[in-house]
């Protein structure tokens, strides 16, 4: 946990319109990497499910790397900070 940070896992346009199913699919995807649905729920920060598909989760570098290699994943992006202008 000490080595983990928030990452955005971007999956592109929504593959279907049901937000609940989309969130379930995000948990399932994360569970394949972290080992369990319970842990996936714990690590999940947001499920992006209305305007596009993806999620934010607290991940180690190696988990982020594994996710980025999945064919359904467009990009895994480390969380960053923006500034007001």
């Amino acid at each position, binding site marked *: 946990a000490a080595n983990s940070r928030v990452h955005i896992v971007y999956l592109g*346009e929504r593959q279907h319109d049901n937000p609940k199913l989309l969130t379930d699919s995000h948990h399932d995807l994360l569970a394949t990497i972290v080992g369990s649905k319970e842990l996936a729920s714990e690590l999940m920060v*947001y499920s992006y499910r209305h305007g*596009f598909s993806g999620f934010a989760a607290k991940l180690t570098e190696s988990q982020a790397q594994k996710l980025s290699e999945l064919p359904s994943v467009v990009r895994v992006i480390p*969380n960053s*900070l*923006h*500034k007001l*202008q």
Partner: protein
Amino acid sequence: TTRSWDFLGLPSQSPSNILHKSSMGDGVIIGVIDSGIWPESKSFNHNGLGPVPSHWKGICESGDRSNATIHCNRKIIGARRFIDGLRKEHGKPLNLSAEFLSSRDAHGHGTHTASTAAGSFVTNVSYKGLGHGTIKGGAPNARLAIYKVCWNVLEDGNALVLRCSSADVLKAFDEALHDGVDVLSLSIGSSIPLEQEVHDDIAIGSFHAVARGITVVCAAGNHGPLAETVSNTAPWIITVAASTMDRSFPTSITLGNNKTFLGQAMFTGPEIGFASLIYPELDDPTADGGCQSLSLDKTMVAGKVVLYFTRVSGSTAAIGTAITNALAAVIEAGGVGLIVAKNPSDFSVPFNEDFPCIQVDYEIGTQILFYIRSTRFPLVKLRPKTFIGKPLSVKVAYFSSRGPNSITPAILKPDIAAPGVNILAATSLRDPLWEGGYRMESGTSMSTPHVAGIVALLKAMHPNWSPAAIKSALVTTAWRNGPSGLPIFAEGSSQKLANPFDFGGGIVNPSEAADPGLVYDVGKAGYIQYLCAMDYNNSDITRVVKQNTTCPIKKPSILDMNLPSITIPNLNNPITIERSVTNVGAPESIYRATIETPFGTIVSVNPSALVFNSTVRKLDFTITISAIHRMNTGYYFGSLCWADGVHLVRIPLSVRTVFAPYDEN
């Protein structure tokens, strides 16, 4: 704001302008992703507004000092907050003692931007007497949906910092797209190095927003006047630079010999009648900047105005520090005013309005110094003034980030400029600089909601226009000259005529944008073409657009993306570029091309006339550009303009010739 809308040609008194033709943006929902809102501000009253638009599906959340029932109304129709990304990233608990754990704005920035975009009418507003008038937003009848993503965090050592996490920003996009906003305004940016679109949360969120017909307006950033600093560069975003307007708040400096100069200061205190004026010699005359080297004798300075020269230059922070130190020394020694002479190309740093800290250039500073040298008892009188109107030249602001676009040089950024200097708008009552609930602020944060407000007016008038069509309307009709008719300058070192890398098409011209004649539109196919040109792979593009995509073997040219600008970063052989325009004016119209050729190039357009009728609404044309000289150059600028006798549809041309592959920047 009390002046910028008049400056932009939208006075509320005029019944014929687009403010009235658009019912002041009624029915349009502007989403503001920022630091929240102070809902009690008079700028968010809902007097005269009809019911909440039927396409609204969002919510108002209650929270810390925020009651959805009380604080949301027919103006603020949505208010939510997102902080989980920031919290989880931080690891240990965030110190939010300077925050409200709700959509309520502790900082003031979000209240300022929201009221600039869509604030209601409030009479008799000023900031310490400056900028007095009726204040309003660009689309006073548009509705606001607030998404708070930026938080005042108290860090170790008691430093208060504003943090906006990308995971939270993206969640705000996700919800806003569900909620039914029509326009999104983000006065948020990133620093260099910028990330490619699929690594950039704002580019990702805005891509999906634009795909749903939602226009996204973003700040260009405040890293000017340095080149290649513009942020939010994705071609589907409207990227906004900041300009001054035809109002300034100088302070007059009248010397004992009756000569008067004007300096830059937002001084709101009472006039300083004739007081003694001194120039303290420095302890170390070689010290850089001088200001920091002041060692002021209290008996010498008390009750006097001090003249000062600083040699610090180039960095706003460094100049600010130098002047801050000098100011502290003068106040400490009992002085009653400070005149700082600094490099004329440097930004005028705003200071506490109650104490006169007046910034002049070296020329005026030297004249004041000569006066001090010429008399035994030099005197000076300081008096605040407000100037409004034509004699003031309009400039691209010093701080406004500049192109070229460091990610995709062939995509012109910024797109457009709008007023962003000394903008008076509502703020949070937690903002230490508020005065009656309002304050002056400067930044591309302030110019961005001006454009968002104008987009709301355009949406109300033309609900079927795509985000690309709206962007085209703004860019092709923008002002390249100020109200005086003279070309617009860009502040910087040194001041120069503004070019497309400073202000895109120019300063936004809302009335003309409502009737642009022709638009350069981009649909899904155009964005796929861009993604292919940017070398994204087929499977990524297929997922992003949810459409099976195979990019052509011959990579499409970014130059052919149907944008309202042409930027060629490396012209060597003649190149032919494709564009198409859609007629949104009178069906029967003939447009003829005129070209302002960039220096050292030959430009031709084929065909040179476009004939539209009731069945032909969209026409293609090509532009061929070749270099005359065969050497590396910097950028030269020109334009291509289609005219039908009523409309002028101008796009900027920016061309750099490159014959040897090394960096000429």
